[in-house]
């Protein structure tokens, strides 16, 4: 999964106090980026590049981990053993994706506990999509099909991110993400083909509720996106929000026809001239409301994360105490 609007951040970060030496290093750094060279952890990098990446990668990691919660809601109620196994495997993947990404962020010289503290204190964001509830079983299918589908669209360009540890993590993630989208579509397809009228209505209801938030996952329009330009310059971001959103709409419109559901947008229509689908205006006020902490589940999600962290503290401490004791024993022997 993915955090939208990862380039949303305070505007005061670009402090232009640089020595002549730093300016020369930055010039060489940008020349390397222009040549398509990758940046590794120990290479010199502008402080702003480093901070942008710490923010983006950590928020991406938080999203993977928080993203386990809406799906975890359905583990005990999955309709069959097969679906339960699939769901557990997918949730485990999300946890794994979070770990790859935390490790990538740590190469930039930050501690994992520090990143997690920032999440728990509400200082770091995660993708707003996970602040919506999973009300019925079809929501789990729709998360796979649409949420993970949007995530894949967003994430594939990140496999070419200029920061190599992030790019490597993203290659692994993208490889695993494809199963997430396909199992979602498959679950919905079974409901549409073999289900009752009520089950088909559940699918349509879930699509209706998730469609617009999914379009918001690509972040604000490029013209309003504060950090897009710099991120493009540095090869952190490769394709703009609007282009990715359009790509997602075009791909999904066709899949929706195959599935037999309607996307809840009366203005959605193929535009022969543009070679793309036109679609209706997005309610950005809702997006900012949810980013700002006032979505349907923001408080519940954060409370669940903090509780898991605090309840697990004794396990982390005990494992460490055990390891130290064994090490002392080994040293004494």
């Amino acid at each position, binding site marked *: 999964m993915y955090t939208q609007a990862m380039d949303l951040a305070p505007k005061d970060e670009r402090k232009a106090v640089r020595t002549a030496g730093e300016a020369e290093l930055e010039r060489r750094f940008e020349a390397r980026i222009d040549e398509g060279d990758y940046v590794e952890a*120990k290479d010199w990098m502008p402080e702003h590049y480093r901070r942008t990446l710490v923010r983006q990668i950590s928020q991406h990691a938080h999203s993977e981990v928080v993203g386990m919660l809406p799906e975890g809601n359905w583990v005990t109620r999955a309709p069959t053993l097969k679906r339960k196994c699939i769901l557990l495997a997918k949730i485990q993947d999300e946890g794994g994706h979070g770990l790859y990404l935390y490790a990538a962020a740590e190469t930039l010289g930050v501690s994992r506990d520090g990143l997690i503290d920032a999440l728990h204190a509400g200082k770091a964001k995660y993708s707003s999509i996970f602040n919506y509830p999973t009300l019925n079983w079809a929501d789990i299918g729709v998360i796979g099909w649409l949420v993970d589908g949007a995530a894949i669209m967003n994430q594939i360009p990140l496999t070419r991110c200029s920061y190599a540890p992030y790019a490597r993590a993203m290659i692994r993630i993208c490889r695993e993400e494809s199963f997430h989208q396909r199992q979602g579509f498959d679950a919905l397809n079974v409901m549409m083909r073999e289900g009752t009228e009520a089950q088909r209505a559940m699918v349509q209801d879930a699509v209706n509720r998730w469609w617009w938030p999914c379009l918001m996952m690509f972040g604000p329009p490029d013209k309003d996106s504060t950090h897009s330009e710099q991120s493009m310059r540095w090869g952190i971001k490769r394709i703009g929000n609007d282009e990715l959103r359009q790509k997602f709409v075009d791909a999904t419109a066709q899949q929706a026809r195959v599935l037999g559901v309607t996307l809840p947008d009366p203005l959605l229509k193929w535009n022969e001239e543009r070679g793309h689908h036109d679609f209706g205006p997005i309610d950005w006020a809702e997006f900012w409301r949810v980013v700002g902490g006032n979505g349907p589940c923001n408080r519940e999600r954060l409370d669940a994360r903090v509780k898991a962290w605090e309840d697990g503290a004794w396990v982390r401490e005990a494992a460490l105490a055990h390891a130290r004791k064994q090490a002392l024993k080994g040293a004494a022997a």
Partner: protein
Amino acid sequence: MSENDKPRAEWPLWEVFVRARAGLDHKHCGSLHAPDAKMAIQLAREVYTRRQEGCSIWVVPSAQITASDPGDKDMLFDPMEDKVYRHPTFYELPEAVNHM
């Protein structure tokens, strides 16, 4: 106070190397936090081999790895650039024996 007695909230970092198939090298695939080597192996299995990506795992405390300095890259590696005679393609042999 020895290193082991210090209060340390975060589990140490380990680098993980996985052998994909018998006959191949172990390859670096990422890192993770674990309290000790045994747990590091266990967690590496969960994090890096969920789809049969490996048949053997090495874990090494990250602090134990010594790496070359990126600043020394030119000094270390550029001298090899003009030693083309170290490559078999440098030598043009008669056609009859060129598969040598």
